[in-house]
């Protein structure tokens, strides 16, 4: 125990140094070497447009390019990729992209605007299931036209934050001739991109390997000769690989826990940088608004008041999280309500005594003898631990929950069908850093993950207005109003915390900067190895 305590300051120092000094900013890049890291699951199918697991995006990230991308050296900024420049019409409804010339696909065919059109025609096709890129763009885009071989124009249905979606790691450009030949992008042989790496090998269940694209359109890049992603499914195997130096980076899901980070720090010492970083993921407790007892708004309010987010974050996330917030200031800056304000609101304020007393009264009003219910949870990560603690908190106010756990994929099917009363914990990851993501994903009537069937016209209206508002200050004001409203509404999706985690990178891995979503900045385009 003493040894662990003694390591805490060391770990803190390592974190501080890691965050203060971006890896490799001051050295001259050198070429060569192979980066090793891991994919947490075997992707199986590889179609970036048709799939949604991170394992698929990660497996193909370096193979493709987008029209735009999040800048590898400054992941907050949107930067050119296959489009060297772009213009927007004054009404914000027409975007014109001017493409790079002379770009070639990995099989030597020339890249043209026809490929861009084929890609977006595919993802925007109403009959094509595209859970990431298509789901984001279908509500926004009216049409896509190739004006000439090097120019593409998008017409939007209304002004919207379109560029973050186009820069999303899921909206990568596929080759028309490959789509024509294979019909989809599921198989390894269909992985023909314009990205910095070529798809070399997929040893299912074991390894995904990329090799340097010597004809990459940015001269001199990439620096490394290749990337190997080992498919490591088990947590102990992932940690052992990090400790034994078999992997150079932990920048995927799930992040390390603090105790794992401490164990790694003991094993590797100065050889690694360990850092805490947001996962751009919000932890939600869902209540079904059309099923008893949560069809009564006061019962939802009682749960909101009773949940002690600070305790949940401290005990189940080992402190790595931002409790209570609907928007995390670290991720969206001043679009988020100041945390000082959030912390004073009912449900979040400390100590909890007043909120718990009020919650007890609300439950007693409807259920004088308390209420028993079944609580759904997917048995992944530490969800069961989180759920147990949550149930303990709810027991204090007379809600006696019994856990019903579902295996990962089956759980999503149950949630999607609405076959639950309460979901104890479910993280929802954002696809971009746009502040509108969380509202469109969880809180509006039509939100994709509005599993509890929450509907509030004011929320829909504010979300829509904020999405279309071009003026940044006005948009921030709208989001503040929306957050204040939601934090005091009788929600079905109760925000517990924005989840953070611990990651590491080997010190010989230079110029790596973690993206602001789990999906960004994993192309290794500008990463180089010191030795």
């Amino acid at each position: 125990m003493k040894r662990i305590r003694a390591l805490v300051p060391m770990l803190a120092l390592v974190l501080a140094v890691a965050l203060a000094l971006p890896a490799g900013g001051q050295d001259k890049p050198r070429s060569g070497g192979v980066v090793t890291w891991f994919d947490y699951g075997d992707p199986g199918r590889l179609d970036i447009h048709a799939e949604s697991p991170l394992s698929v995006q990660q497996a193909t990230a370096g193979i493709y390019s987008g029209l735009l991308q999040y800048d590898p050296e400054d992941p907050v900024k949107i930067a050119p990729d296959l489009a060297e420049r772009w213009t927007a019409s004054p009404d914000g409804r027409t975007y014109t992209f001017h493409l790079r010339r002379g770009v070639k696909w990995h099989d030597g065919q020339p890249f043209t605007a026809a490929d861009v059109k084929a890609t977006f025609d595919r993802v925007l096709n109403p009959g094509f299931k595209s859970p990431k890129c298509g789901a984001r763009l279908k509500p926004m885009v009216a049409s896509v036209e190739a004006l000439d071989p090097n120019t593409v124009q998008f017409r939007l249905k209304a002004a919207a934050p379109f560029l973050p979606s186009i820069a999303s790691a899921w909206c990568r450009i596929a080759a028309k001739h490959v789509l024509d030949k294979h019909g989809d992008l599921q198989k390894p042989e269909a992985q023909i991109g314009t990205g910095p790496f070529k798809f070399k090998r997929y040893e299912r269940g074991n390894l995904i390997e990329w090799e340097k694209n010597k004809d990459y359109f940015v001269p001199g890049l990439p620096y490394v000769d290749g990337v190997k992603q080992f498919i490591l499914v088990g947590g102990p195997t992932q940690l052992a690989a990090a400790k034994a130096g078999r992997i150079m980076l932990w920048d995927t899901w799930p992040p390390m826990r603090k105790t794992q980070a401490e164990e790694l720090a003991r094993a590797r010492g100065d050889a690694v940088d360990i850092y805490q970083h947001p996962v751009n993921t919000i932890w939600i407790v869902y209540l079904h608004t059309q099923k008893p007892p949560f069809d009564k708004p006061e019962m939802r309010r009682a749960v909101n008041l009773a949940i002690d987010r600070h305790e949940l974050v401290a005990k189940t996330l080992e402190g790595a999280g931002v409790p209570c917030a609907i928007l995390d200031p670290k991720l969206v800056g001043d679009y988020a309500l100041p945390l000082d304000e959030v912390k004073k609101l009912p449900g979040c304020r400390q100590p909890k005594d007043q909120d718990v007393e009020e919650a007890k009264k609300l439950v007693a009003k409807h259920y004088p003898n308390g209420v028993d219910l079944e609580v759904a949870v997917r048995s992944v990560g530490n969800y069961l631990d989180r759920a147990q603690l949550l149930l303990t908190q709810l027991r204090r106010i007379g809600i006696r929950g019994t856990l019903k756990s579902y295996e990962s994929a089956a759980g999503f099917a149950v949630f999607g069908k609405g076959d639950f009363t309460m979901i104890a914990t479910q993280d929802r990851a954002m696809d971009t850093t746009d502040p509108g993501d969380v509202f469109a994903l969880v809180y509006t009537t039509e939100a994709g993950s509005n599993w509890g069937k929450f509907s509030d016209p004011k929320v829909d209206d504010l979300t829509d207005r904020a999405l279309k508002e071009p003026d940044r200050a006005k948009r921030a004001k709208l989001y503040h109003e929306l957050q204040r409203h939601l934090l005091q509404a009788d929600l079905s999706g109760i925000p517990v915390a924005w989840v953070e985690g611990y990651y590491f990178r080997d010190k010989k891995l230079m110029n790596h900067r973690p993206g602001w979503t789990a999906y960004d900045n994993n192309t290794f385009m500008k990463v180089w190895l010191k030795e």
Partner: protein
Amino acid sequence: MSSRYIARRLLMFVPTLLGASILIFVILRLVPGDIAEILVYQSGGERSSIQETQITQIRQELGLDRPVVVQYLDWAAAAMRGDFGQSYLQRRPVTEILKERVPRSLELALLTIVIAMLWAVPLGVISAVRQNTWADYLVRVLSISGLSMPIFFTGVLMLYLLVRFFGWMPPLEFVSFTASPVENLKQLIWPALAQAFYISAPITRLTRSQLLEVIRQDYVRTARAKGLGEQRVVYRHALGNSLLPVVTFVGWWGGRLLGGIVIVEIIFSVPGMGSALATAVSQRDYPAVQAMVFVMALVFLGINLVVDFLYAWLDPRIRYA
């Protein structure tokens, strides 16, 4: 061994395999959530008419909208031709997956049995011939430890100790035995050891108890009375007869090993049938799961059949039973 005995055993093999295949098929469909729902809801979507249409379309494409009996008959007919269908998850023929994965898992299972036998039988002999000495106690403690520790615990512990004390772990990149036997063994020896530790415990105990029984029999006493050395008595006369139940047990375990291999393959990152099965089950990849479990059942029944023949050959009394 009479041909009648062989024929009867072979005839029993067929309905057993058929029963296993029906069981696999039905149980898999009783698990909540099918592939269509999983594919549609995996990104966390909510039920809507679009989702429902997509689910219906996928079920039609995969033939899941037909009655289960029809699905089974189609599957069984194709399986008899060696066609296990297309994997929903990997979008390629399941036979390709089997060809790729089964040899790796069989190699691991074989390695496990060899290590377990090389280790467990001599320990059992020592324990029996030195009954109630410190050596016997030590072997029994080791056996109890092996039996009490689940394979996942032994595997993780082994991985932890390797990294903790040697800063090393088995290679993560799989290399086939034909490409490089040394690299292949560097990876496979550890999961094999973890499993062998577990299954060697009952083998040791069984060898010990059988040998203790045999060395008290008259013919062993006669051998000793003839002036034969102890080693010759034990290894030449007693051990062979003690190993009959051990052979049965190892056969039985050989089949079970393929099922238990799921855990060690995941821990040691071996891309065999076990790890593929785990992924396929979680995604309700029916054709892949059915084929893999069917192969496991086939191997299990096949080994048992061989063991039965072997047993009948070793012990002439069996054929009349």
